[in-house]
Structures are given as structure tokens and as C-alpha cells.
């Protein structure tokens, strides 16, 4: 057990995966100098140019070439720099990578991890701040992961690299420096939620950095005598439906909170599933929190208007008792 940052936990996962499997390699712009957030620092020195590969500014080629290389016996880790830029390679991800195995009748696999740092990060404005996880959950063929803690970023990235499916791996840019205990022996099964806090009164479902805010909110709620259960989904596809449904059956109340736009966000899927399957367990109104359907502005006060905060989660949880 060591204390590590969220960024370094991922770096360590990559290092260990590269040490144990010579077919793992990383490719993206500026990786040779450690990557734009330093997430690859030192790896070139250890593994060389070919396995920590720079790339031209050409997201379509990075994604497409990594896919070709994945079909021919290697396991690429693709760095997209900002999740927003991955939109330059949407055909490659959605029409090619996600579909190839099925379309070719099982002849191929695309064992690759596509790292897409997402989310709000100090005045980065509309083209460097998006959270589009719900898009990828909607695409058959893709696994979608959203780690929120250093331990999960270590364990999930290792599992993602070992997984034979293409994995969209969404780290949150605002928590690179977040520190926490990391146990290198801790393995997780992709698709299992993490119950960050158990509680009896209300279920709060969240993921990515918002899950950390949900834990904060639960502490505040505890002071108000509300015992919240916080489920950090971690994996959006597959998602741990039984953890959520069981918890709602127990608490009878539900708040779903995420940073991405509420309309058409993955929160809708969770609320809809609960409404379809355990509506009769509900003891109060369900609440869903997400960003308004507006754009992320540069000015800090406007940017803040797009945020889901711990306070908002507290209020929403209280509203489920109304």
C-alpha cells in the first residue's frame, strides 16, 4: 500500500502492464516528453521510443492505426489528450473499432484502451471540457470506464489493458493530483460498482469526479441525520445494475449525479431502469443531477454554473424525502 496520485496510479498500471506484456505499447502526441498531463513521465526512458510512441497530430490515424495494430497482435494504449479531440476519430472508434469483431463474424478482436481525459478543468472552455460518456455507453462493442480514485485508476487501467474488448477509458482531468492509498495487489472485476459508503436512507449513484463529490455530500448528510449510500459505478458499460437496484430496494430513495449534460446523459438510463424495475420500492421522488443543456464557458463564474456540486447533491438527497 502506497500513497499515490490519480495520475501516477495510472502510470504505474501502465508500467506494470508493459513490463509483463511486451505487446503493450502506448501511442499519442507528445508522449515522449511524458504526455500533456505527465501521465507517461519516465516511461520512454524505460521502454524506448517504439513502445512509448509519439504521434503526428492526427487523431484519426492514432485511433485507426492503433486499431490495425490491435488486430495484428499488439495491445495499444491510445492517448487522446483531451476527450474532446477524440471526436476527430469518431468514425474510427464507433464504425470501426466497436464493430469489427461482430462484423467480421468473430475473426478479430480489438484489445485496446483509449484514454480520454474528460471533464471540467479550470477555464478550459467549450472545446476542452466535455464529458461524453453517455455516447460511448450507447455504442455496442465498447466498454466504458470512469475511475474516480487513485486505487481505481490503478486497478481499472490494469484490467482494461488486460481486457480483450476495446475500452474507452475516461479519466477526469481535474483530479490528476488527487492522492490516495493504492494497493498494487487489489484487483477489480470490470463492471462491479464500488460502494463508497453504505447507508440506509438514500442511494446516491455517481461516477468519475462527481462520485467524490457524492462522498462529500454523504458526510454532510450524515450531519443532518441522513444515512446515504454512495455507489460509484466506475464502469458504465457494463454497469452494475444489481448494485443499484439492490440499494434502491433497501433505501427506497435515489439521487443520480453526474457532471455531463443531464439531457440524454447516462443518469437517464439509471433513473429509467429504476423506474422500470423497482418503482414500487420508491418512497420518494427520484432526483437526477447533471449540467444544464448549455455550453461550458471560459469565465470562471459561468463555468461554475455548469457544475454539479456536493451541496447540490445534498439538497437533492433531502428532496427525495419530500
Amino acid at each position, binding site marked *: 500500500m502506497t500513497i499515490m496520485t490519480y495520475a501516477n496510479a495510472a502510470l504505474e498500471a501502465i508500467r506494470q502492464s508493459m513490463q509483463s506484456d511486451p*505487446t503493450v505499447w502506448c501511442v499519442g502526441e507528445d508522449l515522449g516528453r511524458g504526455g500533456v498531463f505527465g501521465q507517461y513521465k519516465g516511461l520512454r526512458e524505460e521502454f524506448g521510443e517504439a513502445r512509448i510512441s509519439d504521434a503526428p497530430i*492526427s487523431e*484519426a490515424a492514432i485511433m485507426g492505426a492503433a486499431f490495425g495494430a490491435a*488486430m495484428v497482435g499488439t495491445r495499444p494504449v491510445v492517448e487522446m489528450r483531451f476527450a474532446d479531440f477524440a471526436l476527430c476519430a469518431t468514425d474510427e472508434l464507433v464504425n470501426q473499432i466497436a464493430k469489427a469483431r461482430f462484423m*467480421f463474424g468473430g475473426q478479430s478482436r480489438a484489445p485496446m484502451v483509449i484514454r480520454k481525459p474528460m471533464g471540467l478543468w479550470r477555464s478550459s472552455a467549450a472545446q476542452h471540457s466535455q464529458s461524453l460518456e453517455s455516447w460511448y455507453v450507447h455504442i455496442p462493442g465498447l466498454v466504458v470506464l470512469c475511475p474516480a480514485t487513485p486505487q481505481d485508476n490503478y486497478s481499472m487501467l490494469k484490467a482494461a489493458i488486460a481486457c*480483450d474488448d*476495446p475500452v474507452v477509458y475516461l479519466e477526469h482531468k481535474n483530479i490528476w493530483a488527487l492522492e490516495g492509498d493504492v494497493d498494487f495487489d487489489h484487483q477489480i472485476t470490470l463492471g462491479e460498482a464500488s460502494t463508497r459508503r453504505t447507508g440506509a436512507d438514500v442511494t446516491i449513484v455517481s461516477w468519475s469526479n462527481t462520485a467524490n463529490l457524492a462522498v462529500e455530500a454523504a458526510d454532510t448528510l450524515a450531519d443532518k441525520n441522513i444515512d446515504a449510500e454512495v455507489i460509484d459505478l466506475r464502469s458504465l*458499460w457494463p454497469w452494475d445494475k444489481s448494485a443499484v437496484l439492490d440499494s434502491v430496494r433497501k433505501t427506497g430513495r435515489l439521487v443520480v449525479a453526474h457532471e455531463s449534460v443531464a439531457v440524454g446523459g447516462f443518469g437517464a438510463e439509471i433513473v429509467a431502469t429504476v423506474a422500470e424495475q423497482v418503482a414500487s420500492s420508491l418512497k420518494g421522488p427520484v432526483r437526477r443531477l447533471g449540467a444544464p443543456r448549455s455550453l461550458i464557458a471560459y469565465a470562471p463564474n459561468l463555468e461554475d454554473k455548469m457544475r454539479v456540486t456536493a451541496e447540490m447533491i445534498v439538497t437533492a438527497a433531502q428532496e427525495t424525502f419530500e
Partner: protein
Amino acid sequence: MTIENFNTDRGLALLTVMERIRAFEEQACLAAERDKLVLGAIHPSIGQEGVAAGVMSNLNKDDIILSTHRGHGHTLAKGASSVAMMRELLGREGGCCGGKGGSMHIADFEVGMLGANGVVSANITIAAGAAHAIKLLGDDRIVVDIFGDGAINRGPFLEGLNWSTVFDLPILFVCEDNQYSATTKTSSMTGGDGPAARATALGLRATEVDGNDAEAVADVAAEICARLRAGGKPEFLHAVTYRQTGHTSFDPAAYRPEGEAAKHRLENDPIARQRDILLTAGISEQALTDIRGEAQAEMIEALRLAAASPFPDDDTVFLDVQDLGSPAVEAY
């Protein structure tokens, strides 16, 4: 015409492949139009067989190719089974993709054919990546990616070719230029001096060849493949040919200037031209007729077998989606 040092075996092999491609696609078109057994679109390469035959004659089974929506010829020439291919066109069990892909996604990984693609130009970067893996793994295979003249106007052309030079990959890009992009004369939508000029500007050695001269294609591809196998840099081949049919088997192609297609059929058919070469080289008319007859018999039988095959098991709709998560969520 005198032919010195003519390689009769290769000449016959090229003809055989071309006749098989032609016969396969003629049967496929019949299956589509006459029999209504092919439900999706098929894009025949009738008139373009010289490129497939010439290029593929230089590849080993474990070399890799990628192709386009117009990929039957390349796939057959690379060694795929005509029966499995025909089954795929009919969406049947035993199709090379289990009936899931159809004509536009034909693939046979066993013979190094990593897929046709329904998205124009998309395979260019993927092919570069296949070559990238070969280099990373220290393998000695080579990769050939074939695409159309329309594909050079999409971004992946630039990104994939640049990638191949930057990483110095063992790959040959072949632009099979049939002069049309669907209903559009490609030259009207293409700036500059065309495919080879673009490839050159991106750092690739580029060669132009008459794509309807299978012998010439085979010769030039032999030289290129030899250079690639010797560790050479990525190369580009611009093979000019002509699409004798419509864009799809259902397209009458009325937008072409009158007489253009007929002229190519009469004067520039790669099969007729190869037959002439072989006759000049002393092969008997009968031998050529036999090759054609065998090819046609093979493909008629392939269609018969395919039509007699069942559709895939319904449950395969949930097979080979992905390892994690159930595709059969309670959606309906």
C-alpha cells in the same frame, strides 16, 4: 507482339484469378438481380480485375491486405474460399463472417484479409496500424491496402500515408483508380495532379501503372514488394482502370458519357488483354476457354451451395459483440 522471357505460369495464373473474380461477380450479380438472394448492395469490380490479380500474385498467405466495399476481387485473389464468400453475400451460415458482414465487410483473417470497409478511406489508417504492429513485433510480413480514387479526398488518406512514412512501415498503398466515385467523375472533385502526386508529397515513392495490364501490375508490384521485404520504405501504386458496371449492381450508370463504358469493355478489358497476351505467347485458345469454363463452373457451384445454406442461427446476433456485459439487455 513478341514476348521475351514471358513467364507462362504466371500469365496463366493471372488469367485464372481474373476469370474467377469475373465469374464470381457475375454470379453474385445474378444472385442479386435475378434471384433476389443478395439483399444488401454489392459493388462489382468487373473490369478492374487486373489490379487484384497483379498485386496479390506477389503476396504470401500471411501477408496482410485490407480493401474496400469493392473488395471481392482482392479477397478472392488473396485466397479466400469462393463458397464462403458467396455464402457471406447471401448472409448465410458458413459465410466468411458468419453472415454478419455481407459484401461490404467481407474478410478472411485466415488468408490475411483483414476486411473490406463500408467507410471510404477508413482502412488506410487501419492498414498503417497493421504494418505498425508488424514492425513492433519484428515480423517480416508486409501489408497492402487497396482503396479507390475517391478515397484520396478524405483525411485518413493524408493521416495514414503520413503515419506510414513517419514510422517507416512495410506497407504498399494501392489506389485502384476506376475513375468514378459512385456517380461522380472523380477528377472533377480532386485538386492537383492526383493520387501519386499526393503520395509523393507525403514522402512515399509512387509508381503509376496501367491497372488493366495484369502483367504490368504484377511486375511493378513484384519490385515494390521485394523492396518492402528488404526493409524498404512505404510505397504507393496508382493503378488506373475502369469500372465497367454501375457503382452497385443495380446502378445503370447513365451518368457516364455515351460509349465510354462500351469502349473500355471492347478495347480495355483486363481479361481480354491478358488472353491476347497468352495467345501471343503461344497458349491455345482451348486452354483459355477451359480456364474460363472452370472459373464459371466453380462460381455457379458456389452460388448453388450458398443458396442451399441456412441462415445463421438467430442466437448469433448476440455472439461476438464483446466479452464484457450482456448485449441482450432487456431492451425489448
